[in-house]
């Protein structure tokens, strides 16, 4: 699975930063059919966890109501340099992890 975690290049300590995540995933609803009429089983990323230097900052439980190739955007406060790690799991039990480094300047 291909994913991308986007952060500002640098941030001051205490600054509000925007975290944007996209993951390549069909988010199969379970309502679609193959050409032969066989139903395509539901397979969505049901759980996603975001950690900042090991501490959880965001969690999402998603269903078939989230569009394919899910996009998430939220905020967090920059504290110290480190990395933001996004981990997820889909209905088939397939896991994915993507990390992004954050450089925090003091003041």
């Amino acid at each position: 699975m291909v994913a991308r975690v986007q952060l500002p290049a640098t941030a001051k300590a205490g600054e509000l930063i925007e975290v944007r995540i996209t993951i390549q995933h069909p988010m199969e609803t379970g309502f679609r059919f193959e050409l032969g009429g066989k139903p395509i089983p539901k397979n969505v990323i049901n759980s996603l966890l975001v950690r900042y230097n090991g501490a959880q900052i965001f969690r999402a439980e998603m269903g078939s109501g989230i569009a394919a190739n899910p996009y998430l955007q939220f905020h967090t406060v920059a504290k110290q340099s480190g990395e933001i790690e996004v981990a997820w799991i889909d209905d088939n039990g397939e896991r994915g992890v993507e990390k992004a480094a954050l450089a925090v300047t003091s003041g």
Partner: protein
Amino acid sequence: MLKRARRRFFSFLAGVAALPLLAARAASGQPADPFADLVRKITGGAAVKPGRVTVDTPRLADNGHSVPLSVSVESPMTAADHVRSITLLSPRNPRPLMATFHLDPAAGRAQVATRVRLNGSQRVLAIAQLSDGSFWSGVAEVEVTESACLDAT
């Protein structure tokens, strides 16, 4: 002869016109509304007050497969007073519960954006749970010209 046939025809028409009224009455007589039940399940029976939650979507979505949606909640996001979770609900989707986002004070700002699937025009509902246990809601009306879930039966 012809007059009687016409009369019968008109009385038949009146009967057909009354059918949806009867159906509506039967529906309102039932206490079980699946969407209200779902909201009750999320809040645990607590009251949901309108306000403090803003749902931002385009007024008109050409395509229901991917509709940008942003939710923000008025909150200082401090340890004492912050948003715990935001739940997105779409009354007309086959699965109305779209997503739940869990936040904590470290977020700094109670705002989340994503892209959702919408099965037709509807009022998208967002329910936020604050750290004091209260629930607040906001709605956004979206007109969807091409719905998602066309294969749904």
